[in-house]
């Protein structure tokens, strides 16, 4: 009985291969976009996770040299003898055949993390490691290290472009005998150790970056990717839902016959469930492979973005992990379940003697329409409530979801109202029929149009966010990179000589003084600034007192960035303690886009009083002749060219990092729009064959098949334009949520929102084109429908 039943159910797909293709393709596309994004995320996390763990950055306090580039090994020995639990680190770059490789030397016996990051989960044989010079690197990097004369062990857990080795090997390879880059301080120290200042007065302690570590920063980036992956998955599931609904509707009579001929309902349900799971696994399997290809294509951009934005190293190669297969297949099955549950329940509740309603799929009941409108209203109300009262990143995304799904469910009603208006204004009989026929077709196209709405809204939302970000960022760069040249002294000792050399050659020298410290209990970069017209003319505050610069210049005020203001709850007028009895009021808050941590600026002399050991090595130079200053610095002062950066170069570099950041989301946007176009195409193709009974009377009354085909194209274009019109305000709302809610929660700063009408018009053009291309084949098929098929509609036997 089971075999016969399965044979009958499966025969539906054999006879309707297009429907089967739509279902599997929908599932595959949905899974591909989802698993592709997950693959990129997982690979990136695994890759930079290893680097972060090895470095100990973000987890442990560190000791850095106050005035030179390195620490003498004698200082390390002195600390150990004094009882301090510290681990030495040698960190430098090695040129291997033109490729820069980061060499990280640690002492496995004293490093707080030991060798956790290498060995791929297996303990490393320390005796063997210490007795033979050994370097751990991943396969790509290992090849470049072959000529180093040390044993190279391939380890996939080490980040790309990095090699991990013992301190002594690193000193040897980097030609740094007896020198260390920094010391990592273990969290637990013995009682009674002497103060650091007594043992190593020449070293500066830098606090752990607990609030700003790489993982947390990149999490926000991954969250954005995940959100778009989920949106793309939702678009795909709309296709699946539509196809399953249609297939179940068409098989109602078959189910009734199966039951009439003696197959119990339970068995029918089980067979249909098994059938769907099999299809979900096939679609999911294809989707995982496609997702892998998408991920492989996106990964170089993701790697560049993460490195540019956060300094996180990501391997450029992708591994097909078993977990992707499992999660991809599970999400496919779950998505199919969500899409099919309604149809399955309808079949389960269908009375044995219910009359078949082959057109029911096309004519959604008014009860269901009312339900959708009610759910839509509820979701939009939830979105508004969360916009007013919600807090936190998760609620931000819940708001996003409620807004999008609520709007999608409201779309058929909006379109129906628009089509009614068209119908009311029609003056010619053909157009009256056209509008009425379009309204009748609306339920069958609703899901595809909802998919188009979501895809377009995502596109509008993301492009608005990116473009707003770009405008703000360019303005920010103009403000913050006002100096024509930036120079860096080779050593702190060279600093004074450099300033003396520059003084007669430039208008103003602006030293860049900074130290990492704690303000209001949060890790902050504190800058000392020589206040000049450069600041007064170029800096724009988000909020400030009118005499902000005067207050800073006279040491009576401090300005802070938006990140610190939001995290510490500090606003203009609040007092900040700079240590000791020094308390200053906040006199201004400035935008600081792209910076993950807090920042504050005080006047130069005040900074020097607070941190007397800090000697500036970087300077901004205001000059009308940047080229001649550059030449003099190189030729007369002997400063290497690499130590001189012109403003235009920095801006171009900063912008290039920024442009890469959104390449990935841009690619996902295009893919999502393509999936929506596919949904429209498949819906129109499916409807074309079912619409013969509706079109035959119009044909019989004198409309040519060619005219019918043209009207089909016009219909697709009108529906696409109407959907696009609804998508733009939705996309702008999406952008507002991303900029004013999600961005603040994830990155800590709020961006001003700009609108870009030309970009939206272009997008509407694309949507129109996609809809017309999608409608072209179905319209052609309709125009070529043989008259015999149209005549059959009027035959009694059918």
């Amino acid at each position, binding site marked *: *009985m089971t*075999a*016969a*039943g399965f*044979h*009958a159910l499966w*025969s*539906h797909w*054999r*006879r*309707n291969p297009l429907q089967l293709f739509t279902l599997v393709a929908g599932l595959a596309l949905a899974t591909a976009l989802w698993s592709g994004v997950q693959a990129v995320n997982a690979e990136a996390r695994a890759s930079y996770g290893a680097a972060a763990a090895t470095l100990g950055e973000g987890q442990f306090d560190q000791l850095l040299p106050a005035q030179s580039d390195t620490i003498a090994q004698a200082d390390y020995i002195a600390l150990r003898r004094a009882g301090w639990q510290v681990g030495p680190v040698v960190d430098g770059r090695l040129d291997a055949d033109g490729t820069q490789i980061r060499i990280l030397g640690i002492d496995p016996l004293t490093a707080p993390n030991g060798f956790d990051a290498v060995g791929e989960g297996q303990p490393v044989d320390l005796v063997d490691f210490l007795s033979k010079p050994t370097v751990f690197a991943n396969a790509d990097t290992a090849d470049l290290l072959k000529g180093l004369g040390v044993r190279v062990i391939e380890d996939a857990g080490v980040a790309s472009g990095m090699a991990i080795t013992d301190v002594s090997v690193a000193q040897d390879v980097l030609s740094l005998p007896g020198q260390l880059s920094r010391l990592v301080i273990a969290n637990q120290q013995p009682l009674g150790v002497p103060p650091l200042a007594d043992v190593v007065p020449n070293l500066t302690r830098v606090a752990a970056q607990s609030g700003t570590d790489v993982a947390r920063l990149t999490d926000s980036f991954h969250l954005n990717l995940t959100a778009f992956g989920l949106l793309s998955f939702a678009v795909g599931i709309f296709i699946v839902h539509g196809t399953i609904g249609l297939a179940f509707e068409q098989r109602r*009579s*078959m189910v*009734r*016959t*199966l*039951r*009439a*001929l*003696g*197959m*119990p*309902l*339970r068995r029918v349900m089980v067979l249909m469930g098994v059938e769907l799971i099999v299809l979900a696994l096939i679609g999911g399997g294809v989707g995982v492979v496609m997702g892998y290809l998408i991920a492989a294509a996106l990964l170089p951009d993701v790697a560049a973005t993460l490195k540019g934005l956060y300094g996180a190293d990501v391997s450029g190669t992708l591994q097909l992990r078993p977990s992707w297969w499992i999660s991809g297949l599970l999400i496919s099955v779950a998505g199919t379940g969500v899409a099919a549950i309604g149809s399955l329940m309808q079949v389960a509740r269908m009375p*044995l*003697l219910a009359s078949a309603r082959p057109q029911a799929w096309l004519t959604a009941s008014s009860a269901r329409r009312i339900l959708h409108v009610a759910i839509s209203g509820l979701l939009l109300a939830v979105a508004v409530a969360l916009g007013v009262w919600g807090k936190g990143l998760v609620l931000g995304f819940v708001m996003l979801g409620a807004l999008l799904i609520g709007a999608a469910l409201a779309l058929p009603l909006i379109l129906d109202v628009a089509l009614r208006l068209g119908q009311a204004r029609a003056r010619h009989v053909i157009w009256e029929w056209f509008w009425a026929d379009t309204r009748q077709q609306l339920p069958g196209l609703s899901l595809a149009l909802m998919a188009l709405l979501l895809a377009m809204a995502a596109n509008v939302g993301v492009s608005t966010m990116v473009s707003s970000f770009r405008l703000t960022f360019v303005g920010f760069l103009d403000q913050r990179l006002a100096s024509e040249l930036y120079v860096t002294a080779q050593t702190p000792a060279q600093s004074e000589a450099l300033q003396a050399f520059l003084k007669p050659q430039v208008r103003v020298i602006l030293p860049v003084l900074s130290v990492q410290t704690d303000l209001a209990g949060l890790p902050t970069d504190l800058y000392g600034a020589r206040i000049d017209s450069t600041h007064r003319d170029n800096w724009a505050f988000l909020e400030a007192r009118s005499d902000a610069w005067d207050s800073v210049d006279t040491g009576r005020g401090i300005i802070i960035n938006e990140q610190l203001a939001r995290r510490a709850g500090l606003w203009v007028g609040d007092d900040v303690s700079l240590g000791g009895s020094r308390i200053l009021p906040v006199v201004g808050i400035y935008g600081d886009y792209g910076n993950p941590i807090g920042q504050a600026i005080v006047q130069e002399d005040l900074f020097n009083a607070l941190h007397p050991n800090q000697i500036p090595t970087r300077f901004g130079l205001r000059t009308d002749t940047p080229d001649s200053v550059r030449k003099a610095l190189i030729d007369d002062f002997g400063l290497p060219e690499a130590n001189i950066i012109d403003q235009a170069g920095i801006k171009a570099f900063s912008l290039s990092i920024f442009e890469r950041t959104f390449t990935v989301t841009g690619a996902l946007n295009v893919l999502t729009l393509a999936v929506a176009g596919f949904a429209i195409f498949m819906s129109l193709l499916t409807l074309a064959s079912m619409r013969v009974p509706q079109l035959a009377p119009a044909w019989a009354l004198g409309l040519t098949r060619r005219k019918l085909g043209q009207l089909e194209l016009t219909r697709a274009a009108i529906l696409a334009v109407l959907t696009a019109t609804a998508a733009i305000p939705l996309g702008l709302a999406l952008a507002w949520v991303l900029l004013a809610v999600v961005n603040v929660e994830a990155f800590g700063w709020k961006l001003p929102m700009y609108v870009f009408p030309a970009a939206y018009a272009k997008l509407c053009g694309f949507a129109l084109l996609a809809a017309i291309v999608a409608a072209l084949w179905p319209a052609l098929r309709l125009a070529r429908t043989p008259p015999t098929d149209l005549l059959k509609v009027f035959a009694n*036997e059918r």
Partner: protein
Amino acid sequence: MLLQAHQLKKSFQSVDGPVPVLRGIDLSVDAGETLALTGESGSGKSTLLHILGGLDVVDSGTISLEGHDITGLDDTGRAALRRDTFGIIFQQFNLIPSLTVAANIAFQARLAGKASTDGLAHLADALGLTEQLNKYPEQLSGGQQQRVAIARALAVRPKLVLADEPTGNLDEDTAEQVLAQMLDLVADTGAALVMVTHSPTLANRMGRRLHLRQGQLA
């Protein structure tokens, strides 16, 4: 006695309250007997046929098959009865559109585990369907589709064939041919036949005739 029904009552709900469709039907069918159920539209004849075939349930009354009470069977029990014991022929044919003619004919027999290649070939031959076996239902005329439905019902070698206006969708000549073939084949298999029809001519060709009026046997 193959089938015996006693005081069958059935009502349907409407906005004005329950509408009685069967008002106490007593009926018996012997093995191999042919019986016509006639009556006006709405007299309850199709409802009676559905109840006898286990497609619907009664509000009260009993039905026994070969002496066994089948009134209280659950959905699974009634499904087994339809599958193994009855052959049902519908006015709308109810073929499975995605299966070929051959697969449609064999379908119920396969469900019941009774499919035999020879038996199917014989039925196809007797009903003039041999040339159509690889076609799909949509490629057949109405008469051919009803012949497929008859073959499907008989392929399971049922004890009782229940036919609900099997020629209602066919023209007069085709209806005559289909009925003749159905009666011959039913006689060959020794099954009993209960047929609902509007046509007095067709009813007269059956061994016995019962007329329903407003839910009661007249």
